[in-house]
């Protein structure tokens, strides 16, 4: 599982993580902090105050040129025509079979210039896919190496940012100067809390990181690792590509129909989705909550109804906010509705679980 450190890339904040005594692990080809103190401590910091995450491993791709919108609309599931300049949306890039290549956030930066923020493990694949399909006159530029990025998440995130400016509205992106560094700031995140993600030149990463840590000091801002990022996103029921999404799962099965505009005349994978919708889904990504005191569920544990296996978990953990096991998994459609009682097999022992409405955790306001 864990690759040796020599195979792994390091973000520009690597030295900062070491000086904070982070526990480092291999993730998607990157050597990243899994936690600094403990996953639960950092999870709570984000739910109660604010946390800062190094997300420099994520990819940034700029697509520009006349008719960039029209072309990108043919490559992605959501409808870009809805975006004003400075606005972003969650969307998916599919293969011809309707399976997920990547899920991403796309921002409209200028009239015909878009910024795509993509998953670390998928940078090479996404860029190659886009460039292979790219018509003349449109540029697909992989800027992943140029950018470092952090996410600041939690109920105190917007207050903390007030020392610089008011945050842009939800899903919007704008340029600010942070610690003397021109940075893009987007009101988005992967934790289920309010917050923002900031993108800035790689060589300025330490300056921006330190500026946020200083600004955050009086708000109890804590550095947080990938461990808390994973437990937070599972409570919020945000899928993780490579675990909950892959080339064999469609966004309809994953419960992401809100980010798929089938009214668009065409996009890669559309025909399969239209067909799937007409025929009816056979399975769906369900959110499960286990009975109190159950063993923590993990990815690949089988899901049962009685003695019949009806699915498999794709993600699972002990939820720090709910104090019980939670998981996401594809379940046969007739067993996937909220309220359905199921069991999860942990090392041969079946623990009771219920299908819940998503998200499993929702912030107070």
């Amino acid at each position, binding site marked *: 599982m864990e690759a040796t450190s020599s195979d792994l890339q390091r973000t520009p904040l690597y030295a900062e993580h070491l000086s904070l005594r982070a526990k480092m692990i291999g993730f998607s080809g990157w050597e990243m902090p*899994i*936690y600094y103190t*403990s*996953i*639960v401590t950092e*999870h709570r910091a984000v739910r109660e105050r604010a946390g800062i995450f190094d997300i420099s491993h994520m990819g940034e791709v700029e697509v520009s040129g006349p008719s960039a919108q029209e072309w990108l609309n043919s490559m992605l599931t959501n409808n870009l025509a809805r975006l004003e300049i400075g606005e972003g949306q969650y969307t998916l890039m599919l293969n011809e079979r309707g399976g997920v290549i990547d899920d991403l956030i796309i921002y409209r930066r200028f009239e015909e210039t878009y910024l795509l923020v993509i998953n670390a493990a998928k940078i090479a694949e996404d860029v190659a896919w886009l460039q292979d399909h790219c018509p003349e006159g449109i540029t697909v530029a992989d800027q992943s190496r140029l950018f470092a990025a952090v996410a600041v998440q939690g109920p105190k995130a917007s207050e903390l940012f007030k020392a610089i400016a008011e945050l842009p509205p939800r899903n919007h992106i704008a340029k600010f100067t942070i610690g003397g560094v021109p940075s893009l700031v987007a009101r988005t995140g992967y934790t289920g809390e309010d917050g923002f993600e900031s993108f800035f030149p790689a060589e300025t990463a330490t300056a921006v990181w330190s500026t946020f840590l200083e600004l955050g000091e009086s708000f109890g801002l804590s550095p947080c690792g990938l*461990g808390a990022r994973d*437990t937070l996103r599972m409570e919020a029921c945000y899928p993780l590509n490579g675990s909950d999404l892959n080339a064999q799962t469609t966004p309809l099965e994953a419960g992401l129909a809100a980010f798929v505009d089938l009214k668009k005349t065409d996009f890669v994978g559309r025909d399969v989705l239209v067909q799937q919708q007409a025929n009816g889904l056979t399975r769906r990504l369900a959110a499960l909550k286990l009975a109190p*005191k*159950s*063993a*923590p569920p*993990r990815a690949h544990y089988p899901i049962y109804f009685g003695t019949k296996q009806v699915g498999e978990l794709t993600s699972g*953990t*002990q939820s*720090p906010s709910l104090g019980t096991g939670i998981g996401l998994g594809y379940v046969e459609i007739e067993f996937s509705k909220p309220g359905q009682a199921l069991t999860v097999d942990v*090392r041969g022992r079946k623990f009771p679980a219920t299908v819940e409405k998503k998200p499993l955790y929702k912030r107070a306001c």
Partner: protein
Amino acid sequence: MLVPEDLKYAETHEWLRVDTDNVGTVGITEHAQAELTDIVYVELPQVGTKVTAKQATAVVESVKAASDIYSPVSGEITEANAELESNPALVNTEPYGKGWLFKIRLQDKGELSNLKDAAAYRAQIGDE
């Protein structure tokens, strides 16, 4: 890191305290609990189960992952720490005390010589 002098240690970070009449208590070391962090579930062996040394005998789960716990010696399980069912975090807070995992009747006291003393275990974890 606390490494009590009166315990025996396995390379896989379990400790063993030999009590009277050939019964030993097994737990995980402070170093091990610090590496695991946030222990949320412990799966313990049934009393009466016979195990051999280095056999996976219990499972300790943190938020992050499930970890097998290996019996340092061969023998029969005589007791499992029922308190961990309601309070698994005891393994974090009192790894050498209330956070013990199970007791085992030693089959062969000779196996004790395969385990490390405190100094050797300290050297293993790089703790002076």
